[in-house]
C-alpha cells in the first residue's frame, strides 16, 4: 500500500516534470507566441552581397564592440576586417568567428542563433536583436563563402554598361536606362510625361528658385521647334537667379550667417563671401575648383584676392564672444567645426564620430580625425576679445585673419561684390600663419593632448600622396582627385536630392557604413564619373538630369503606383514636394510683382514679428542685433537668401519651414507640414501685402473686371484655372465683394497691409480680390513643386 502510494507519487512527479519540460519546449519553439514572425516569408536574394546585405547587419548590431573602435573592442574580435573575421579567436583557441562555407563552425553565427541568453549576440541588454531574415541572410552568406568587400562608397565609381531594358521607347538618356531597369525589376512602369506647362514651372523652380513669368511661358509654348524644354533649361541656367538659387543651398552647407552665434551673437560681415558664391555659380566654376578655392584659395601660388575671399567658407562657423571663455578651448571648437564640415558637407562622412574615439562603424580612427584636423589648425585666429556690450558701438567686427575690401577692389578684381561706395568691409578668411602642433585629444578634450599627429588623409578613402604639399592646398588636391571615391558622388547625390527631394543615397550626409545604401548604385556611379569626365560642370549635370525622361515624368500618383511604390523610391513618377521657406517667400514676391532683383550686398531685414530679438537677447545695448528694426522700401522685397541670418534667432519665416539654424553644416532639410506653417502663410504681413499688391496690379492692368480672378490665378500658378476652380474662386470673389461693399471700413483696414504704396484702386474690390489671391497663395499647389 505504502509502496504503491510512493510509486504513484513518483510517477506524478515525473509527469509534472515532463509537462514542465514540454511547456518549456513549447515556449522556446514559439508555440505560445501570438505574433507571427513577419520576417519568415521574406525571400533571400540569390547571391548575398556583403555591402548591401551583410555589412548593414554587422555594422548596426556588432561593430559597437567588434568594430573599428580599438578601445571598445571585446574578445579581440573585429568583424569589419576580413583578416580578423577569419582568424583564430585569441580568447578561444581552435575557434574561428567565420569559416567560409560552414555556418556550423562559425562561432559568430552560432552566437547569433543560440537560445542561451548568456551566449546570445548581440547581448540582450544592448536592446539589439537580429530578426529571422537577418539570421538567414548571415547563414546563406557564410554558405556562399563569406566574401568581404571594401565599403561601396570607398571604391572609386566606374561607369557600368548602360542596362538593356525590355521597354525601349521611353528612355531619353542614360539616366533613364538605369531607372527603368529598377522599375522593371520591381514590376513598375514609368509615368507619362508631364505637360510642358508643368515642366517649365518645375524647371524654373529647380534652376532659379523662382516661378517662370507668364511672358516666358508664353514664349516657350508658342515656339515652333521641338526643343522647347532644352531652350528653357538653357535660359534658366543663364539667368543670375540661377546663381542665387544654388547659393541658397550652399549656405546651409557652409553654415553661413550674419552673426557670430553663441551667447551675444552680434553682427559679422561675411556677405561679400556670399556674393562670391553667387558669382562662382553664375560663372559655372567647375565644382573641383569651387571646392579648392574655398578650402585653400589663400595658399594657391600668387593667390588672387578672389581666391583669398573664397576661403571665408571656413570662417563661417560660430565664434564666441562670451566674457571669460578660455580661448584655447574655443579655438579647438573652430577647428573641429571645419573638420566636421569637410566630413559632412564635402565627403559625406560623419567624421565627428572619430573625434573622441575611433569611429564605431567606419574604418576611421581617432588618429585619422586629428590628422585632418591638423590641416585646419594653423589659422592665426585670436577669438573675439570684445563682448557685445563693448562691441555695441562697432558696426561690425571680425576675428583675425580678415581681408578689408575697399572701393579699389570692388571697382576692380572683386567687382561682383555689391558694396556701398566709400564703406570698407571686413571679411574673415583663412591663413596658415600660426602653425600649431596637433595632438590626438583624449576623449576629444582640448586639454588632454596625447600623441602628436601631422597632416594626412584617411588611407581607406585614398592615400595622401607624398607629392602633395602637407597643407590645405594638398588637402584640396586630395579632395578633388578623380580617384577620391566620395567627392563627386556626394555632390551628385545632393544635386539629385535638390531636384528629386531625396538623394539616391537617402542620407546625403552619411555615405559611411551606417548611412543608407544607394537605391540605384550604378546610376549614382555613372553620374559621378560622368560629372568628373565633363570637368565637374554643374550646369552640365543639371541639364543632363532635366533632359531625362525620369525627370520629365508627371508627378500624379495613381492608386497603383502609390501601392507598389509608396515612397516613390523607384521613381515611377516625378516627386511632388513642398518648396523651402526661401522659395515660398520668393515665389510670393515674384508673382505679386514686388520682388526686387538686386543681386548681393549686405543682408537685409524684411518684416518680422516685433519683439522677437528683444525677448531673447541679454538686454541693454549689445550692438546692432539687439533690436530688430525692419528695413524700408525696396529692401523689404529682396530674395530670401539676402535676409539677415541671426543664428540664435533665425528668420521665423524660414525656420517655420524647416531651415536649420546654421550653427553647423547641414545638407538635408526636413519637409514637415505643420499648423505653424499654415499660420505663417495666412498672416505674415509679407504674404498679405503680396496678395494686396497682386490684386491692385491686376485691377490696374486689366480693364475687364470679369477677367480679374483668372488673371490673379494665372499670375500665381502660371497656368489657366480649370472650370471648376474658376467657379469656386469667382463665387468666392463675388461673395466677398458684396460683403466689403457693405463694410468699407474693414475693406480699408485689410488693404492697409504692408508698406508698399497703395495704388488707389477701389478698397472693396481690392480687398475682395486680395482675399481671393490669399486663397490661391494658400493652396497646396502654390507652395509645391509638381
Amino acid at each position, binding site marked *: 500500500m505504502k509502496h504503491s502510494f510512493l510509486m504513484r507519487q513518483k510517477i506524478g512527479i515525473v509527469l509534472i516534470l515532463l509537462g514542465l519540460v514540454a511547456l518549456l519546449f513549447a515556449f522556446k519553439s514559439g508555440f505560445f507566441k501570438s505574433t507571427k514572425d513577419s520576417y519568415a516569408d521574406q525571400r533571400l536574394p540569390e547571391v548575398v552581397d556583403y555591402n548591401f546585405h551583410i555589412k548593414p547587419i554587422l555594422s548596426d548590431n556588432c561593430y559597437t564592440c567588434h568594430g573599428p573602435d580599438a578601445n571598445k573592442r571585446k574578445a579581440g574580435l573585429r568583424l569589419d576586417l576580413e583578416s580578423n573575421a577569419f582568424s583564430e579567436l585569441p580568447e578561444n583557441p581552435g575557434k574561428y568567428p567565420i569559416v567560409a562555407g560552414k555556418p556550423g563552425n562559425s562561432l559568430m553565427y552560432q552566437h547569433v542563433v543560440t537560445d542561451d541568453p548568456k551566449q546570445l549576440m548581440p547581448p540582450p541588454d544592448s536592446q539589439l536583436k537580429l530578426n529571422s531574415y537577418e539570421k538567414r541572410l548571415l547563414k546563406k552568406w557564410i554558405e556562399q563563402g563569406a566574401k568581404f568587400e571594401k565599403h561601396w562608397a570607398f571604391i572609386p565609381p566606374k561607369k557600368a554598361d548602360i542596362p538593356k531594358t525590355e521597354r525601349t521607347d521611353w528612355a531619353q538618356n542614360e539616366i533613364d536606362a538605369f531607372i527603368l531597369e529598377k522599375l522593371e525589376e520591381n514590376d513598375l512602369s514609368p509615368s507619362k510625361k508631364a505637360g510642358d506647362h508643368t515642366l517649365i514651372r518645375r524647371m524654373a523652380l529647380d534652376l532659379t528658385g523662382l516661378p517662370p513669368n507668364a511672358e516666358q511661358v508664353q514664349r516657350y509654348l508658342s515656339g515652333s521647334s521641338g526643343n522647347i524644354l532644352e531652350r528653357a533649361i538653357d535660359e534658366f541656367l543663364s539667368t543670375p537667379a540661377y546663381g542665387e538659387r544654388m547659393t541658397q543651398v550652399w549656405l546651409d552647407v557652409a553654415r553661413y550667417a550674419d552673426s557670430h552665434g553663441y551667447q551675444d551673437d552680434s553682427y559679422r560681415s561675411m556677405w561679400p563671401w556670399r556674393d562670391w558664391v553667387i558669382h562662382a555659380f553664375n560663372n559655372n566654376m567647375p565644382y573641383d575648383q569651387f571646392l579648392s578655392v574655398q578650402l585653400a584659395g589663400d595658399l594657391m601660388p600668387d593667390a588672387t584676392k578672389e581666391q583669398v575671399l573664397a576661403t571665408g567658407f571656413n570662417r563661417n562657423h560660430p565664434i564666441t564672444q562670451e566674457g571669460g571663455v578660455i580661448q584655447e578651448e574655443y579655438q579647438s571648437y573652430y577647428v573641429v567645426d571645419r573638420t566636421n564640415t569637410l566630413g559632412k558637407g564635402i565627403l559625406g562622412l560623419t567624421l565627428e564620430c572619430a573625434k573622441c574615439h575611433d569611429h564605431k562603424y567606419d574604418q576611421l580612427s581617432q588618429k585619422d580625425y586629428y590628422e585632418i584636423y591638423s590641416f585646419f589648425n594653423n589659422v592665426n585666429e585670436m577669438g573675439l576679445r570684445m563682448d557685445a556690450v563693448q562691441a555695441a558701438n562697432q558696426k561690425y567686427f571680425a576675428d583675425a585673419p580678415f581681408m578689408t575690401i575697399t572701393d579699389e577692389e570692388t571697382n576692380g578684381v572683386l567687382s561682383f561684390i555689391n558694396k556701398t561706395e566709400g564703406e570698407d568691409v571686413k571679411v574673415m578668411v583663412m591663413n596658415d600663419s600660426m602653425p600649431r602642433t596637433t595632438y590626438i585629444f583624449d576623449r576629444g578634450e582640448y586639454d588632454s593632448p596625447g600623441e602628436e599627429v601631422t597632416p594626412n588623409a584617411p588611407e581607406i578613402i585614398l592615400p595622401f600622396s607624398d607629392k602633395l604639399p602637407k597643407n590645405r592646398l594638398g588637402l584640396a588636391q586630395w579632395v578633388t582627385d578623380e580617384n577620391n571615391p566620395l567627392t563627386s558622388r556626394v555632390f551628385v547625390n545632393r544635386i539629385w536630392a535638390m531636384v528629386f527631394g531625396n538623394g539616391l543615397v537617402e542620407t546625403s550626409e552619411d555615405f559611411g557604413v551606417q548611412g543608407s545604401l544607394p537605391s540605384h548604385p550604378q546610376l549614382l556611379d555613372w553620374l559621378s564619373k560622368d560629372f568628373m569626365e565633363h570637368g565637374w560642370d554643374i550646369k552640365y549635370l543639371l541639364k543632363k538630369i532635366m533632359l531625362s525622361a525620369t525627370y520629365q515624368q508627371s508627378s500624379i500618383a495613381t492608386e497603383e503606383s502609390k501601392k507598389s511604390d509608396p515612397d516613390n523610391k523607384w521613381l515611377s513618377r516625378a516627386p511632388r514636394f513642398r518648396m523651402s521657406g526661401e522659395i515660398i517667400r520668393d515665389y510670393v514676391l515674384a508673382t505679386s510683382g514686388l520682388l526686387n532683383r538686386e543681386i548681393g550686398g549686405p543682408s537685409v531685414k524684411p518684416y518680422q514679428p516685433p519683439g522677437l530679438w528683444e525677448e531673447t537677447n541679454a538686454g541693454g545695448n549689445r550692438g546692432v542685433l539687439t533690436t530688430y528694426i525692419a528695413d524700408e522700401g525696396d529692401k523689404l522685397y529682396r530674395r530670401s537668401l539676402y535676409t539677415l541670418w541671426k543664428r540664435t534667432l533665425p528668420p521665423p519665416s524660414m525656420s517655420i519651414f524647416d531651415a536649420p539654424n546654421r550653427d553647423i553644416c547641414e545638407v538635408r532639410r526636413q519637409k514637415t507640414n505643420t499648423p505653424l506653417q499654415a499660420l505663417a502663410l495666412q*498672416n505674415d504681413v509679407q504674404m498679405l501685402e503680396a496678395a494686396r499688391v497682386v490684386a491692385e496690379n491686376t485691377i490696374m492692368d486689366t480693364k475687364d473686371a470679369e477677367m480679374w480672378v483668372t488673371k490673379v490665378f494665372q499670375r500665381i500658378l502660371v497656368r489657366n484655372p480649370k472650370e471648376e476652380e474658376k467657379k469656386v474662386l469667382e463665387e468666392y470673389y463675388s461673395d466677398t465683394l458684396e460683403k466689403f461693399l457693405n463694410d468699407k471700413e474693414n475693406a480699408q483696414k485689410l488693404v492697409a497691409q504692408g508698406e508698399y504704396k497703395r495704388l488707389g484702386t477701389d478698397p472693396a474690390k481690392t480687398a475682395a480680390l486680395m482675399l481671393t489671391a490669399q486663397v490661391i497663395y494658400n493652396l497646396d499647389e502654390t507652395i509645391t513643386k509638381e
Partner: protein
Amino acid sequence: MEEDKTNSENPLKVNRRHFFSQLSVGIGSLALGSLLIPDLFKGSPKPLAGQPLGIPHFAPKAKRVIYLFQSGAPSQLESFDYKPTLTKRMGEDLPESIRNGQRLTGMTAGQDKFPLMPSAAKFSQYGKSGAWVSEFFPHIAKISDEICIVKSMHTEAINHDPAITFFQTGSQQSGRPSMGSWMSYGLGSENQNLPSFVVLTSRGKGNSQGLYSKLWSSGFLDSKHQGVLLRSGKDPVLYLNDPDGLSRSDKRHLLDHVSSLNKIHHVETGDDEIESRIAQYEMAYRMQMSVPDVMDIKKEPESIIKLYGEDSQVPGTYAANCLQARRLAENGVRFIQLYHQGWDQHGNLPNEMAGQAKDVDQASAALILDLKQRGMLEDTLVIWGGEFGRTNYCQGNFDPKNYGRDHHPRAFSIWMAGGGIKPGITYGETDEFGYNIVKNPVHINDFHATIMNNLGLDHEQLIYKYQGRRFRLTDVAGNVVNDILT
C-alpha cells in the same frame, strides 16, 4: 514584437505610417508640432525596445514637467547651500587643496588671490525637514517641506552657452534635441489643440545672458517636436492673429474655399500630403481660438492672483509665466519650459540677487501650492535651477556688501517637487567651503535620467538613430537618482 530594423534614418516616418495603419487615427487628429500623436499615455506598460513613440516604457509617476530655468546661474551660496565656514574664514585665500586644479574662466584667471566670501543673505532652517534657505527666498522657505533640494549638482561646462545647452540638450555643443523635444517624441501629446512643448521667457533686472532658439530646438528629431515659444502680448504664437479687417467668419469662409480647391487638387494628383495640409489648416484655425483662451489669465480669481503676486497680472513677467504654466499644464501641455534671465552676478551680487529672488520667489512657491490644491502636484514634476553654480571666492574688489562671484561647475543647488520626487528632503552635500561635492553627486546626465524615469521613460531605451548612431538624451551615461524618488 520584432524590433523594426529597416535601415531608415527616420523612425518617425515609419512610426507615422505605423500609426495610420495600426490605430486608424484619422487625418483630422494629425496635428501641429508636438500635437502629432493623440493621448497614448495609458498605453502598454510593458517595456519595449527601440522607439515606442507615444508609449512610456513603464508606469509613469509624472505626466508633465514644468521647468523653471534660472538662466545665468543663481548662486547656491546665497540660496540653498549654507556655509558658515565662509563667514569664519572670510577673506582667506581658497586653499589650493580645495581648488585642486579646477580650470577658471577668463574673468578670474588673472586674479592673484581667491578670497573666500560669505553670503550676504542670512540663512535659517525651515519646516519639518529643517532645510536651510536664505532670506532672499522667504516664500520658497515656507514650502520647503514640499520640495527636494539637491545640493550636489555638477557639470563640466564653465561658460553660459555650453552650460545651458548641456542642461537643455544633454550636450555642450549645439545640434542635439532639447529635453522637451525628447519628451514630446517619447510620449506624444496629451491634447489636440496645443503644442506639447512650449517655452515662456522673462527677464529680471540682474546681469543677463541671451537665450537662443536652439535651446528648444528639436535637433535631428522631427521638427514637430520643437518647442513653441509662447510670447506675451497679442501674438502669443507667431502669426496667430488674423489681419485687421478680417473677421472670424471671413476666415472660415476663406478656409472653406482653400479647402475645396485643395480637395479638387487632391483628386487630380493623388498626393495624400494634400489631405494632411488641409488638416493642418484646420488645426491652425482651432489654435487661433485655443491659444488665446489658455493665455487669458483674466479669468483667474482674486485668490490666485494674490497667491502668485501682483506681478502675475503683468504679461511677460516670471510670475505671469508661472501662472500661465499652470494653465498650460491643466490643458495637457507635456513640457513647459520657463526661462528667467538675469542671474549672472559677477558683481553687485547682494543687490542684484535680492532683486532676482524677489522676481521669482513668490510665484515659484505659488505654483507648487496651486498645483497641490488642484491635486496636480503629484503628477507634475517641477524643477527650479540654473546652469551651474558660483564660486565661493570673490570676483573683483573684496567688499562683503558688494561683491561678485564667478562661474563654478563643481557644485551647485537646484530643487525639484512633485511628480514622483520625495518631498521635504535635501540630497547631496558639499564640503565646508561649498566648493566640492562630498556626498551623492548628481551629474546632468543623472538629472536627465531621473526626469525621464519619472515620466515613465527608460533613458537607455529612448533612442533616435541619426547619422548611423543611436542617440539618447543622456548620451552614454546617466543613472537614475533613486534616493530622491517616492
